[in-house]
C-alpha cells in the first residue's frame, strides 16, 4: 500500500489530519474523550469562550428537525479564566492542536477575551462573528462587511496566534464578508456557522425553542455549506475550514474538493459519538484507495 500524508497546514500550524470539531458540539473534548482518542484528531475546536461567564438562553434550547437540529444555547460558557485553568491543561495531554473559539457582544468584549488568551497555550484562534453587536442594535457582526472587518482588525491586535474568522451563512453574499475579514487581517476562514431557523409546536401553538429562533445545523444543511465553501474558495486566498453537516468521510471529501483545507464535525457527534474519528480514518482510507499522496491533489479541484 502506498504511503499517504493526511497532514495539512493551516497558517503554519500542522494538523496530523484535516479533522477538527465544530465549536460548541464537542465541549472542550473532555466528555467525548471517554469515547474518542483525541490524539487521533487534527485539532479540537472548543466551545465558544467569552471574557466573562455567559449564562446563555432559557430552555428549551434544542429541537430536532428532519436530518438536522436547532439550538439556542446562547453561547453559555464559564469564561476565559476557567478555560485557561481547566481546559487547556486537559487538552494538552493529547497530541492534537487546540483551536479556541471566542465570542463577544461588543468589540471591547471580543478584544478582552483575545487579550486574556493572548499568552495562553493554544494553537489558533477562531473568531465567532455570528454574535449580535449590542452597541449597534443587535445586528450580527458577521452580516455587515464593514463591521466584520472592524472587529477582526481590532481583535487581530491582541492575537499572537493565527486568527481564523468564522463566517455566518445568514447573509446575501458570503464572499463579500469573506473578503472583508481577510482585509481586516484574518489568516484563515471557517464556515459555515448555523443557519437561522425556527420550529413551531402546533399543539401548543408556540415556538419549540424558548428563544423562538435558533441555529440550524446537521446533515440537512450540507449542500448550503458546500456551496458557500466553494464560493469563498474562489473569492479569497486564505485556508478554509469547512463545516456544516459533515457526518461521514465522504462528506469531508466533498468539502475538500470544494476548497477546504480543514474539516469540522459538528452535530454529527450527537448522532454518533465516534463520528470525528470515523471521518479521519475514512479520509485516510480514501487516500490510499485512490492513490492520493497529499490532500492538495484534490483540494479545490472543482472549477
Amino acid at each position, binding site marked *: 500500500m502506498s504511503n499517504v500524508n493526511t497532514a495539512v497546514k493551516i497558517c503554519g500550524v500542522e494538523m496530523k489530519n484535516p479533522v477538527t470539531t465544530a465549536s460548541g458540539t464537542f465541549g472542550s473534548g473532555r466528555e467525548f474523550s471517554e*469515547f474518542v482518542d483525541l490524539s487521533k484528531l487534527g485539532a479540537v475546536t472548543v466551545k465558544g469562550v467569552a471574557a466573562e461567564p455567559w449564562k446563555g438562553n*432559557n430552555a*428549551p434550547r*434544542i429541537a430536532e428537525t428532519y436530518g438536522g437540529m436547532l439550538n439556542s*444555547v446562547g453561547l453559555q460558557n464559564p469564561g476565559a479564566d476557567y478555560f485557561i485553568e481547566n481546559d487547556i491543561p486537559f487538552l494538552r495531554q493529547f497530541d492534537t492542536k487546540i483551536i479556541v473559539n471566542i465570542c463577544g457582544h461588543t468589540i471591547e468584549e471580543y478584544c478582552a477575551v483575545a487579550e486574556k488568551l493572548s499568552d495562553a497555550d493554544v494553537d489558533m484562534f477562531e473568531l465567532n462573528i455570528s454574535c449580535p453587536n449590542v452597541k449597534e442594535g443587535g445586528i450580527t457582526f458577521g452580516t455587515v462587511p464593514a463591521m466584520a472587518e472592524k472587529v477582526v482588525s481590532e481583535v487581530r491586535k491582541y492575537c499572537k496566534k493565527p486568527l481564523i474568522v468564522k463566517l455566518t451563512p445568514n447573509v446575501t453574499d458570503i464572499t463579500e464578508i469573506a473578503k472583508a475579514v481577510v482585509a481586516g487581517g484574518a489568516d484563515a476562514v471557517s464556515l459555515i456557522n448555523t443557519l437561522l431557523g425556527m420550529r413551531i409546536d402546533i399543539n401548543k401553538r408556540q415556538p419549540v425553542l424558548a428563544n423562538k429562533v435558533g441555529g440550524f445545523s446537521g446533515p440537512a444543511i450540507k449542500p448550503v455549506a458546500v456551496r458557500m465553501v466553494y464560493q469563498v474558495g474562489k473569492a479569497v486566498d486564505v485556508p478554509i475550514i469547512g463545516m456544516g453537516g459533515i457526518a461521514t468521510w465522504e462528506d469531508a471529501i466533498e468539502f475538500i474538493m470544494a476548497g477546504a483545507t480543514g474539516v469540522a464535525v459538528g452535530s454529527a457527534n450527537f448522532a454518533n459519538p465516534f463520528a470525528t474519528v470515523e471521518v479521519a480514518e475514512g479520509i485516510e482510507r480514501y487516500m490510499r484507495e485512490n492513490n492520493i499522496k497529499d490532500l492538495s491533489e484534490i483540494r479545490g479541484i472543482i472549477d
Partner: protein
Amino acid sequence: MKFVEYGEIVENIKIGANAYKMTIVLPKISAEAKPGQFVNVYTGLGEMILPRPISINEYDAEKGTLAIIYQVSGKGSEYFTTLPVGTEVRCVGPLGNGFMIDNEIKKNIIVGGGIGLPPLVELIKHLDGENHVFIGSRTTPILVERLEELGAKVHIATDDGSVGFKGNVVQLLDEVKPEGGMIYSCGPKVMLKYLAKWAMENNIPCQVSLEERMACGIGACVGCAIKIQKKGESDWQHLKVCKDGPVFFGDEVIWDE
C-alpha cells in the same frame, strides 16, 4: 465510565395503554448503572440525528441486561415499537448521576407520575428503609405489581378516579400525610413543582428527576439547561440536566418561567 454499546433487543412488549418495555443486552452499561441514571437510545435513522434519553427501569448486571420503559410520544418512540426482538440498537450510558441514596433513613416517600415511574423501580431495590410509593396517573397505572413484589406499599391517585384516589398525587399526599425522611421522585415537571412545594411545607428533603431537551446527553453541548440555585448561593446558574442531574433537590430548582 460511559460506554457506547450495540445491544440486542431481547424483549419489546406493550405493558400498558401507552407504555412499552424494552430489554436490551448491554453488559457494560448494566454493570456500571446506578438507580436514576438514563441511557441514550439511537434510532440510527438519518432523519433523526438526536438520541432519545430514556431512564433505566431495571438492570441486571449478572445477566448483562437493562430494561427501559417508554411511551410513544413522537416519531422516535413510535419507531422503537416497531423493532423486533433480535434487532441491535446503539445505546450510550449510563448517563447522569442518578438518585442520592441515603440508607440511614427508615421511611422513604417515593413519588412517580406517569412515565416517570420506571426509574423508581430500580431505586427501591437499593433503599433499605420502608418504601411508600405514591403514583399519579391519568388512568390505570403501570408497574404496580412489580413495586408491590419488591415490598413497597403503593398508593394510587388517578385523574379519572378509575383506580384509587381521584385527583392528583400531591392531593393524595395531603390526604395520607405520610411521614418520611426523604422524597425520591420522577414525573412531569408540573407535578414535581407542586411536590417540591409540598415537601418544603412538610420539611422533607425532596429529590426530583427532571427532563430537558438534549443533544449530546453527556455534558458537552450545554443544550439541557436548568436553572438551579444552590443552597447558600446568592444567584442561580444554568446547570446541565444530563451531567449535573437529572436528579436535583426540589428546593434548589427555579421552577417558574
